[in-house]
């Protein structure tokens, strides 16, 4: 266990991110999109801190299961909650939220899916935790905290009521 992040720590991180988001995006009335499932939880908390007027409309949720790049290797995901973007993304500024940024593959898949819904003006990325191990040229705009973990360790957000991070060590299996 190299990092202990309990719900109080996480609230501090969310408040910090919310401040940064307010500073940069307050002029454009962005749309908020969370990546299922951890990203949606973080998006909800951000919306709570920033207030209902900050974002335009309800939170959109993305489930990138059908846009993953590992279907031909691992097959179908067991359960998939459908994506729900209850607004048009055309010409809008989007704030895309995820819990952890790791390889960057999830963000890649999310961007592809968003562009199947329309052509946004801009997409910014907010992540609660940014860890080492990027495999694609993807960088966040708003970060709660940066950490370094050995490649055999996975970090996962649990929720939705109480957000906490869990670190798991995988025995000799590569991500």
């Amino acid at each position, binding site marked *: 266990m190299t990092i202990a992040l309990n719900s109080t720590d996480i609230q501090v991180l969310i408040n910090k991110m919310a401040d940064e988001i307010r500073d940069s995006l307050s002029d454009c009335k962005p749309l908020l999109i969370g990546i299922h499932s951890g990203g949606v939880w973080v998006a909800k908390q951000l919306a709570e801190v920033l207030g209902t007027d900050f974002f335009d409309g309800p939170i959109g949720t993305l489930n990138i299961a*059908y846009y993953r790049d590992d279907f*031909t290797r691992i*097959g*179908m995901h067991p359960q998939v*909650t459908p994506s729900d973007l209850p607004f048009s993304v055309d010409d809008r500024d989007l704030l895309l939220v995820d819990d952890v940024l790791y390889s960057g593959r999830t963000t890649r898949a999310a961007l592809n899916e968003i562009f*199947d*819904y329309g052509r946004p003006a801009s997409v910014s990325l907010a992540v609660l935790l940014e860890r080492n191990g990027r495999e694609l040229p993807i960088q966040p705009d708003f970060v709660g905290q940066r950490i370094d973990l050995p490649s055999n360790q996975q970090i996962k957000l649990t929720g939705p009521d109480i957000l906490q991070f869990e670190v798991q060590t995988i025995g000799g299996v590569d991500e």
Partner: protein
Amino acid sequence: MNNQLTDSGRLRHFLTIEGLKQPLLTEIMDRAEQFSSISHQQVKKVPLLRGKTIVNLFFENSTRTRTTFELAAKRLSADVITLNISTSATSKGESLLDTLHNLEAMHSDMFIVRHSESGAAEFIAQHVAPHISVINAGDGCHAHPTQAMLDMFTIRRHKQHFPDLCIAIVGDILHSRVARSQIQALATLGVGEIRVIAPKTLLPADPRTLGVHVFHDMDEGLQDVDVVITLRLQNERMQGALLPSAREYFHNYGLTQEKLNLAKPDAIVMHPGPINRGVEIASNVADGPQSVILEQVTHGIAVRMAVMSMAMGAQAEQQESPA
């Protein structure tokens, strides 16, 4: 052992509802529900089966089924080609296998098969290379599993809880692969009561083996049902004079609004298509507020996407796992 399933119980081929368990049927419907949302996207497709080659092998005519299979494949980003193959050259076994091996040589990943012979899809599944999945799009009088699942999906959209339902299937049960697959699916999903309503000549010799309640009188059979499924009178499969005339058939077994009023007020009316207006169903019922016939067509795409992606997913899993 069910040869449609992989060792880990995933759907590798989809040939018949028979022998499949309730959780698998529910999974097909759940996945179809997920795929339904794709039609709200500006780009109505997901890249799930990108690079896969799917061959629609139609040895028998079809419009709806063929088109919705094609659309389903395209919405999953697969490459799809449709071959309409005449069955007239019937040195069956050999010529069929030759066709298959040629398509295999083109590196196909999935065959969607419709054939007038019962058992054709299963025969093909037994003879294809192990990496190929076979989906039955209707074989003779035997089975039409994707039609049955889109019907189950449509019922679930309107009625939710299967055990509480009473469902009547009206018409040509004898020649109907749709009815056979529907009855199996309804039974597997635990539907409270399944009724079939038909003249004796359009029922199998012992219909009770299907596990249904048999009615020959439509007024009796439609009492208080939640769902009425009408079937097409299958002229092309009828050998011998089983019916006096289409007009008399309509009089006895055609679904009119008056007869439909015997069912529950919120009963829905279904039909697998193509409909013969004025034969098995009155025009105003087919187009009426209780009809969900066009919804069935829409749902066919999502259900077929679900089945195709599950089969390709099972293949991927199998190839990854050590032999």
